[in-house]
């Protein structure tokens, strides 16, 4: 099979963790694309920033606590991880409240990164 150039793929995570399947499905898709060694970046926007909130305890709810799985992204060399400053602020969060290191950026800066992608995948 012909060698295909890497695609630049940005995941836009905009939904909270446990109220819908979006965030979990997004994480799975990121890991799959990461395994295919594409150029991945991930931006957490709106309620998506809640996905990375520290101290999630899902035992009483009886569902999987998948936020810790985001820690494995760096094993896939996925280090371009961004969070929208306004989304964090509106929810009373800072980068310190998140389970992995993120680059906190203004909407305009994230928008510029979006423009440079081959594909945008919203979750």
């Amino acid at each position: 099979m012909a060698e295909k150039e890497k695609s630049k793929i940005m995941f836009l995570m905009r939904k909270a963790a446990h109220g819908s399947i979006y965030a979990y499905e997004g994480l799975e898709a990121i890991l799959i694309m990461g395994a295919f060694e594409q150029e991945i970046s991930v931006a957490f926007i709106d309620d998506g920033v809640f996905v990375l909130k520290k101290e999630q305890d899902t035992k009483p709810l009886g569902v999987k606590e998948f936020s810790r799985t985001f820690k494995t992204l760096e094993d896939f060399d996925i280090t371009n991880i961004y969070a929208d400053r306004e989304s964090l602020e509106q929810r009373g969060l800072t980068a310190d409240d998140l389970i992995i290191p993120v680059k906190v950026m203004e909407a305009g800066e994230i928008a510029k990164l979006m423009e440079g992608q081959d594909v945008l995948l919203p979750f």
Partner: protein
Amino acid sequence: MLHTINKSPFFSNNLESCLRFAKDGDPIMLYEDGVYAVLAGTKIEPAMKDALKKHPVYAIEADVKARGITKVLESVYLCDYSCFVGLVEQHLVSPWF
């Protein structure tokens, strides 16, 4: 970059977030319940009027008509799905859903 919205702006913040991230000149396509944003006389109208100064705004006419939206904000382009496809062909697509 083409931004697409298919949820009512009274139900979700998709339109709001789209407008925060969209660059001036980026086209915005409203379809399904997203077309409620083009109804004149709502609380969304000021934000939409502002958006219309910065972006070409398209709405699927069949969706607009199906919802009884007769008072459409000025300078919104009412179009069909072939126009939607044409825009998708020309732009990187950012769906807000």
